């Protein structure tokens, strides 16, 4: 167990060390991501200044949800951006380098890349909570915990989407499109959406579990909702690992 932790730590630190070579790029990209987030969030501010509230949701609720989504996506892309490299790794067979190591391929793949811009996302969330979100510091640990669950589900969803390449090798752009859709839906309000859309957001594209459900829990603790979030996190993580491994078996069979 100790050796396993030491190995995972080594993977993570190696990922972080790769930034040593390009620190300036890291800060510039993080800064621009924060500016981009602020511009996007500005639209919500204008919207709520106009309509006041949306079926009981106020600007403060959206601020908290948007902050959570930004931080969760940022955490996922900072630590596990390797999931997004799966498509091209399968296309050019560079996934072979993970299969010829005496370790499980999944952790190595997930931690094989980090997105520098995501640092901007990670910091944008708490900044938003502290400024417009009116979040007292006492609630911070709770919000951070919800963000971690959200980040895990986002990572699992990303891995599932990019694992499609094992079945549709020629369509590397398709997982990218799904991923972009996931980001857009995760940073939007699902509150007040029709049942069909909600059903979709809580099944195939789990954007509802990434932002909407944690946002509800931010408004007030509900043991049932928290239980659902826990189960969903375990379920999507297990499902993503299963789909990835099934795809990998296809790859080794030479079907891909």
């Amino acid at each position, binding site marked *: 167990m100790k*050796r396993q932790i*030491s*190995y995972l730590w*080594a*993977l993570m630190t*190696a990922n972080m*060390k*790769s*930034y040593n*070579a*390009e620190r300036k790029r890291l800060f510039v990209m993080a800064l621009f991501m924060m500016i981009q987030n602020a511009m996007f969030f500005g639209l919500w501010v204008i919207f709520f200044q106009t309509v006041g509230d949306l079926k009981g949701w106020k600007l403060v609720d959206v601020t908290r949800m948007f902050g959570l989504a930004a931080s969760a996506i940022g955490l996922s892309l900072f630590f596990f951006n390797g999931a997004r490299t799966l498509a091209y790794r399968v296309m050019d067979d*560079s996934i*072979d*380098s993970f*299969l*010829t*190591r*005496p*370790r*499980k391929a999944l952790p*190595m793949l997930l931690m094989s890349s980090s997105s520098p811009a995501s640092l901007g996302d990670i910091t944008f969330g708490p900044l938003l909570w502290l400024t417009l979100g009116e979040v007292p510091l006492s609630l911070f640990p709770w919000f951070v915990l919800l963000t971690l669950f959200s980040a895990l589900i986002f990572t699992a969803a990303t891995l599932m989407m990019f694992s499609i390449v094992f079945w549709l090798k020629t369509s590397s752009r398709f997982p990218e499109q799904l991923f972009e859709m996931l980001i857009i839906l995760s940073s939007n309000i699902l509150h007040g959406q029709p049942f069909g859309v909600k059903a979709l957001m809580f099944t195939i594209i789990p954007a509802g579990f990434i932002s909407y459900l944690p946002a509800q829990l931010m408004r007030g603790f509900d043991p049932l909702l928290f239980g659902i979030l826990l189960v969903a996190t375990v379920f999507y993580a297990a499902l993503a690992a299963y789909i990835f491994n099934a795809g990998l078996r296809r790859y*080794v*069979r*030479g079907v891909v």
Partner: protein
Amino acid sequence: MVEEIIQVQDLTRIFRVRDKAAAKSGWFSKPATKELTAVGNLNFSIKTGEKVAFIGPNGAGKSTTLKMLCGLLAPSTGTASVCGLVPWVATQELAAKIGLVFGQRSHLWPNLTVSDSFALLGKIYDIDDGEAKAQTDKLIEVFGLTKFFGQYARTLSLGQRMRCDIAAALLHQPSVLFLDEPTIGLDVTAKALLRDHLNRLVQEFETTVLLTSHDTDDIEKICDRVILIDHGQKLLDTTLPALHRDYTHYKTLTLATEEACPLFDHPHVVVEEQGDHRLVLKVDVKQVRLESVVAQCLECFKLHDIAIEDLPLEEIIKTIYRQMKLARGA
């Protein structure tokens, strides 16, 4: 210790590929496909410590076979074992026992220093810190990596990168080393240096080597046995000296003469090159004794120098393929 470290039995890999020759299918109909046999009923075994060249033209099935032996691809039929394991079943377990070097693909992390890459590999292969350091120090010394060990992998020259890649593949002291075009793109000096380092290390660790390369110098300098394949089938499996002995009956005689324009005539000798004070002869030793040709040369010319060489391996391989092609045609 396993006597035969690699065993391959009736290994076959068939791919289903799009049949471009077939009539064009509609938008929603399934495209026509055909079967392509990349490797067909391949059989061979390799003993511990052997250094084997696995050669053949492009598309012969070398890489497909190599992929199957590393566990990256399952065969359609047949079986194989490497270090006593079925590669495509126990891929992860096997990975600890083999080393891989693909000339066109680096196993180093481009944004990490070589030193950090080695440290990470130590963790991946679960090598004790002390042992990893000792082995790293040894590899640094043998491969002469000191100068660029602290550099980012992406800033290395191709020659430096290949040396680091091979050293990295030997960090966990694998029993079998698979080398796929290890000297591709390197200049003559870098190639020679790399081969020297590699030979030193594989001898010391008693590593079994399976090498694919289009560079016949790699084969001559590293290997002691050759397996020749084409169209996924084994054509030849022999030792390097036997290949020279059995598949060529020519010797090359290079003469440096006093005479400005040396002329030579013999029914079983072909004049390959004739120039200023220089003559290159191809002698058919099955038809004429080499000694008698040399004696005739000594009689005819005042010699400054003489060199007798076997036909280059490249020529031998070409001859074998020509013979096989003719046999197939017949």
